């Protein structure tokens, strides 16, 4: 069966069973290894990508559900001529990255938050991160980074 969607802005077409996880399509068919297979059970968020702007756990997201949608991964983030996007830069500036295995997922979740929420505070950041497990950092520096990126944003992008 064939499934069409846009991947980081480019139209793509894959012939796999509809129940194949979006994560394995990204990794195995397209060689996009940014999203990680942390648990494969929809519990850790290391595989988070955006489908029509919404963060999803791509390890349990059937590729059939992405039909016609816009799929964005960490590899496709637009940094508007800068080396990094605001949230990527803030994560490094605030020391929010340790092993980094959770980070591609965290970057996608926070990108969606920054794009959609107009007022961002500690509690909106924490609740947006509820599906992203970070075993290393204790989250505080990730939260600081998100807050700083939101402040620099001055509202939605």
């Amino acid at each position: 069966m064939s499934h069409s969607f846009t991947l980081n802005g480019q139209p793509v077409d894959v012939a796999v069973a509809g129940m194949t996880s979006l994560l394995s399509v990204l990794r195995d068919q397209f060689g996009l290894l940014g999203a990680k297979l942390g648990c494969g059970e929809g519990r850790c968020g290391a595989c988070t990508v955006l489908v029509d702007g919404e963060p999803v756990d791509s390890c349990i997201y059937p590729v059939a559900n992405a039909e016609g949608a816009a799929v964005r991964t960490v590899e496709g983030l637009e940094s508007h001529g800068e080396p990094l996007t605001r949230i990527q830069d803030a994560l490094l500036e605030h020391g929010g990255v340790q092993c980094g295995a959770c980070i591609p997922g965290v970057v996608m979740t926070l990108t969606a938050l920054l794009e959609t929420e107009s007022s961002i505070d500690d509690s909106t950041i924490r609740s947006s991160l509820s599906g992203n497990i970070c075993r290393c950092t204790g989250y505080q520096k990730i939260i600081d980074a998100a807050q700083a990126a939101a402040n620099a944003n001055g509202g939605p992008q």
Partner: protein
Amino acid sequence: MTLVGTSARRADGEDKVRGAARYGMDYLEHGTLVAKVLRSTVPAARITELDCSTAASMPGVRAVATAADAPGLSGLVIVKDQSLFATDVIRYVGEPLAAVAADTAEQAEAALAAIDVSLEPLEPVLDLEQSLAEGSRLIHPDWESYETAMPGTRGGNLAWESRVERGDVDAAFDRAHLVVEDEFRTQRQHQSPIEPHVAVARYEQGRYVVHTPTQFPFNVRGRIAELLGIRISDVRVIVPPIGGGFGGKLDVMVEPFACILTRKTGRPVRILNSRSEELATCGPRENAIVRLRTAVAADGTLLAQDGEVIADNGANSSGETVLVANVAPLVLGGTYRIPNARYASKVVYTNTPPTAAFRGVNGPYCVYAQEQHLDRIARELGMDRRTLRMKNLIRAGESMVNGQQLDDAFLTQAMDKVDEIRPWQDAHTERKPFRGVAVVPLTWITNPLPAGASIKLEEDGTATVTCAGAEIGTGAVTTGVLQIVAEQLGLRLEDVRVSPTDTDTGGYDGGAQGSRTTYGMGNAALDAATKVRDQVLEVAATMLEAGSDDLEIVDGTVRVAGVPDQQVAVASVVATAMFDSGPIGASGKFATPPIPFDSGCMAGAAVTSFAAPLYQAHMAEVEVDPETGRVTVLRYVVAQDVGRAINPQMIEGQIQGGVLQGIGYALFENLRLGDNGEVIDDDLESYRLPTAADAPPIDAAILENPCSYGPLGAKGAAEPPIIPVAAVIGCAVSDAIGKTMNELPLTPFSVLQAITEDQDRAVRSDQRHL
């Protein structure tokens, strides 16, 4: 000094935020086969038949490996009682029986299902006390035949015992004003890094080349060799970026299967654990029982302590539990002055998955027990809990239980710093019903293992560090060590790089464990950098016609101090040296200097002292919901001595991360075992990890109390923040509800039970009064 002490960005950070870093789990080779492991579903049995003939001839199956392929016995240094596959006898649910390499995962799974196993069940021994009881079935009937690295007390189901004894314990108990006795029980905790265990192996030129995200490449190399019965140098371990470890990636785990199967097939073989294999088979922090009996004078002076720690080894000694047995007495007797002490630390076999190192090893539960116990002593004496601690705290120049003198003890300073941030008196007087507060001091160790590193200067004047230090995520290798090197060489941080971790190219390194990378590798790299600097200055002195003592290196330029226009670029120095004296480069090395202690007081001790000891204090304020038993951490304060802060922001990150792992351990993380000794919590729904909602506000103060043999004074920083957390939260909960909590974790259920027991008792006593 400009770079050391700054919060430089991590050199590997951009790759990580872009998703471009290639972790162990992302590493692939062309034509790779998939390996899967058949694991036991029973805890104890004799294998009467293991028939792989059908499996071996199934479609896509390239090879099957069994016990015959891995003849060696291994174990983490001390006791060699682990075989790769169960041989004749099964000792735990999850023990490997066979492994298959096939073209696809589905084919490998199908082959596993076709392996015929016949078993004769044996009586499982699951409980720690039952295991030690007279007449219990022996889990290793051949225990006497196993090789051990040192003498120690063992026998039957007692895998190992470490003992420490000082002073006259019995006499001290006889003259005590008060004797208090407690027992504590704690659970298994799983490391659960985001990246599971994974390895790709290839057999090449008669050697095994293994890509694996391990914390301790030289240990994995040695253990593969031991299990396969080959030479250590026939294995080469290459470490890609590691997606977290926390102790869980110290031991050999999936690598030997890939090695055997690549040898059999002539193809690269990849093996990747599922999350359930991770939780069910990769050694967690051990469950334990701690019994403490303490003699106290009327003024609160600790006179003597008699302690017994019983730790679950699981079915073999593949993890660190035996190796670190003596850390339990050291941590129990390392923070307070206990002139008479007797500790026995017993590691016991059970028919359960082997346990292993998790950040802080046995520290978190020993400290939990000690501090709950001290709070009970304070309550019985009617003494303020902080005062009791301050009174007995080890001061500079006093000794730990092993007779090791702590000349740089900094415990009172750490306690004072916490008090400055959140005064104990205020926290105490502001308490409301069901709110509690506690403060806990702690002495801990920096792992003392040796390290080697080498540095060469490139033709463009930049420097490359080659070492086998594993970058586990702390930034210690990719940033901390580089800051030290760049500072010493007078180069910009971006002009110093580290080559990938590889046992073929890097000198021996004791692994990313016990906060030792900045300390051990930092020292080795500093030694190399000092030699390289000397070489640069010697050549430059001739070029600049100046004495090398008058030279300084700043931002890649060698100049005569005070004469700014007399200068030469490091790149030119490198070019001149090349044809003059040869390329510039040097190796450096480090071993921890001998630490004096009283060897007569210990037996069976693999860890005899606390190298580069470090000191800290933690404080917590909690609220208990009397309706639900739920504990909320309102405020958390840490003051931690790191010797010298190389990168303060990274240290803060270690404190925040360690504290949250400790909160998980204190309040909910519990890797439960079922009736067959099998792991019940084998997914992340039932094994809950802390989320952003669980993270309390943390005030962290970094204290600098230099270590005379640390690089620029630095000692360990990353491991200890997890250790006092369960203790301080447990004591704060006890304060809130007025009851000693003898078991971890402090789930809403157990806290509620403790509260209602009290209410029941209150009701009963009220009725008596009527």
